[in-house]
């Protein structure tokens, strides 16, 4: 009998479900036995149920310059599963990394020891567009800079996990992690019990606790600052505000009085203690940064500088998000923590460096080239999959703006079984766990697994035809941490 799974082809690279001798990996064994019994029609029905639910719940993102304004971010019915010991490894690696990154941010905006000790060249830092000279000497509440980080992790064909980049500028996607879980629980309730999947439900509460920690107040006024309903992530902003018990605010709702931030209410004004802002640094305050910004609030930066309001994340974290600075994270870990990095970086070539740039230009067909400030899969070249015209364009740009680009060997990330074209196919996946840094560093057991639904594609971004998967972290034993 041919089942759906017997046709599953996965020999491209490391497959999350199947090992090289065509047996299911232990992590997936129970799930494998479950899905083995399903027909294409069954999964198709689950898929349709999921799509319908996403649409009805209004879990959509807005696409700029498109006729169909609201789109759902497709959720694959097949989860991505990670076992307990692998997760522990990822978790400890991320904690170490965030600790070091926060030390770096604190240092780079005050004493700059890391520059003085010749670990990172001054010009690398000062030429980063994420480096805000306005933040020099600023002490954010509790010396926390990166309260929320979404690091992108991939698994290479060697089975190892690598950090691809750290997103410290208001990373998005966490609402999808939470809503995906709710929908998957409705679709496969019995599986959650059977597999003992760890719960992600506490994330908004933990985020609230970060706000409480920063302001030393359990009943403080907390807000989520959004650019507005036409922003592509508006659903997420409103979702988080509701879940955190915070106000959803736009720049116009705020007014700064005596260097304190207040919101305008029907009865006057009320002071805000902490803002989880989903507006880019340079749009926060037109009096300090972009004077044309209509999104921000005049005086906000001054209120932050005086310690009268907490901003999550602190302005200026973008310097650690820069893909050139990324290459120094392992050095930061050794420098600030005197530890060896647990999660490795991908090997990266700096186009800024003459020798390395020459290597990149000579071997560009094999490499992935990224803009150091790029996000969303834009300004990205995948050498082996690009035509000569695009390659020539990137070469020209690299020579013209060497500081703007880095390059990495093309790494084929692992594949995960995904339901595409009415059958189960291997598709490339990455993983974005969310790390919160309040009193302690907490990594939510799960994350957003993004999947490149196009065959062979390595680009997983929602704006580029990617989808998502619920990420299941299995408990250590079958007794603890039941999902409820």
């Amino acid at each position, binding site marked *: 009998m041919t089942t759906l799974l017997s046709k599953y082809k996965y020999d491209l690279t490391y497959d999350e479900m199947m090992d090289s001798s065509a047996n299911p990996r232990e992590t997936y064994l129970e799930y494998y036995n479950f899905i083995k019994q399903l027909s294409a029609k069954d999964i198709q029905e689950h898929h349709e149920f999921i799509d319908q639910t996403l649409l*009805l*719940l*209004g879990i959509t993102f807005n696409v700029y310059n498109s006729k169909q304004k609201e789109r759902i971010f497709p959720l694959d019915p097949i989860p991505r599963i990670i076992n307990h010991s692998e997760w522990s490894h990822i978790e400890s690696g991320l904690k170490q990394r965030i600790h070091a990154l926060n030390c770096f941010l604190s240092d780079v905006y005050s004493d700059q020891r890391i520059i003085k000790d010749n670990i990172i060249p001054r010009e690398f830092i000062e030429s980063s567009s994420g480096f805000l000279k306005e933040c020099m000497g600023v002490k954010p509440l509790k010396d926390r800079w990166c309260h929320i980080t979404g690091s992108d992790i991939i698994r290479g064909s060697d089975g190892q996990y690598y950090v691809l980049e750290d997103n410290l500028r208001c990373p998005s996607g966490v609402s999808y992690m939470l809503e995906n879980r709710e929908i998957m629980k409705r679709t496969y309730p019995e599986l959650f019990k059977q597999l003992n999947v760890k719960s992600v439900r506490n994330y908004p509460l933990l985020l609230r606790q970060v706000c409480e920690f920063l302001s030393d107040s359990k009943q403080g006024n907390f807000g989520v600052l959004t650019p507005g*309903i036409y922003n592509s992530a508006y659903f997420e902003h409103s979702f988080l*505000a*509701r879940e955190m018990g915070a106000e959803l605010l736009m720049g116009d709702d705020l007014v700064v*009085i005596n260097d304190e931030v207040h919101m*305008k209410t029907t*009865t006057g004004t009320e002071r805000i203690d902490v803002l989880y802002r989903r507006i880019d640094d340079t749009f926060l305050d037109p009096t300090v940064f972009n004077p044309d910004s209509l999104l921000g609030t005049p005086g906000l930066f001054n209120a932050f500088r005086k310690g009268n309001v907490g901003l999550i994340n602190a302005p200026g974290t973008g310097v650690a998000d820069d893909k050139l600075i990324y290459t120094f994270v392992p050095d930061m870990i050794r420098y600030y923590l005197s530890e060896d990095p647990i999660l490795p970086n991908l090997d990266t070539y700096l186009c800024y460096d003459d020798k390395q740039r020459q290597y990149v230009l000579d071997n560009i067909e094999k490499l992935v080239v990224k803009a150091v400030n790029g996000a969303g899969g834009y300004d990205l070249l995948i050498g082996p999959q690009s035509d000569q015209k695009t390659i020539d364009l990137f070469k020209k740009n690299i020579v013209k703006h060497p500081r703007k680009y880095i390059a990495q060997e093309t790494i084929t990330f692992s594949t995960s079984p995904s339901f595409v074209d009415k059958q189960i196919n291997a598709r490339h996946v990455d993983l974005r766990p969310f790390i919160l840094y309040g009193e302690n560093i907490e990594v939510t057991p799960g994350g957003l697994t993004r999947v490149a639904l196009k065959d062979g594609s390595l680009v997983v971004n929602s704006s580029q035809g990617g989808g998502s998967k619920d990420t299941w972290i299995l408990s250590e034993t079958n007794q603890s941490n039941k999902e409820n």
Partner: protein
Amino acid sequence: MLSRVAESIFWFSRYLERTENTVRFLAVQFNLEIELSSQMSDQWAPLIKTICSEELFYKHYSSPTKENIIQFLTFDENNPNSILATLNAARENARIVRERIPQDCWQYINKLYLDVQQFSTNQSKDYLAFFDMIKQSYYQISGVLYNTLPYSEEFHFFNLGKQLERANQITRLLDTKFYYLLDKDSFVGNHIDLIQWTAVLHSLSAVEVYRRTFGTPEPANIASFLLLDSQFPRSLRYCIIDAQASLHKITGNDLRSFVKQVEKTMGRLRANLDYIEIDEIFSFGLHNYIDRIQQRINTICNNVKSTFFEQDLQAKPELSVSKVALTT
């Protein structure tokens, strides 16, 4: 509560109410046409005036045929008061405050919008079923709100919006109906008259209650009931009584007097409706009276806006917090 949130809840409520009113008026017209198809020809044109403006209609259509009017009032995006347009506006406002309203409420309005969009693309359209669907969703959404919204500012801004919108719709309906029905012939109480006037009551779900109180439909009684009854939820006076109650819950001021201008304009309208006699209204002229009422409702809405939604804080950043609180 944030001014912007209050404003969005207020407008969400108004647009939702407007959508439902349009649906009611259309549904009654459909029924009327089935009953009176042989006796009446041009019953559709007054609807344009009740719901929108004739000027806008003739900008886009040459003749007031049934098909044109239905299209104009249901799915025409050029008409800001078409069902699709007001529903979209309600949904957009709900979206702005979706973290503040019950989740079910957002899901129902979202589903309704998607269903209406879907219906607009159907080849053959069962309008009566379509109107039923919207009415049911309306009651579903109201049901969720009335059972789960805390009775604080959220609720009272919602209720204030609803009652002011409903009051406005009632006056529009009465104005056009009296104009068209009384203008043609004098009321003689014949078969057609009875059906026509019953339809007016139907438009506001008032048939049964009216019948128990007054019996046979007569214009003066209908006007009296729909304008001045103090207990019927779709009478003008009841809407204003309830709007006033919510307004004072929001401000926290005593209902017996006023502190803010908006409380004064609301109280004045309430007093008028409380004490006026229907004979006085007719001798003043129903149309003139309604015209004046509409102006007053308009003034109240402007006062609501300037009192709660658009306090000018930005212009005086030097004010200390306590001073700002005092000026509001």
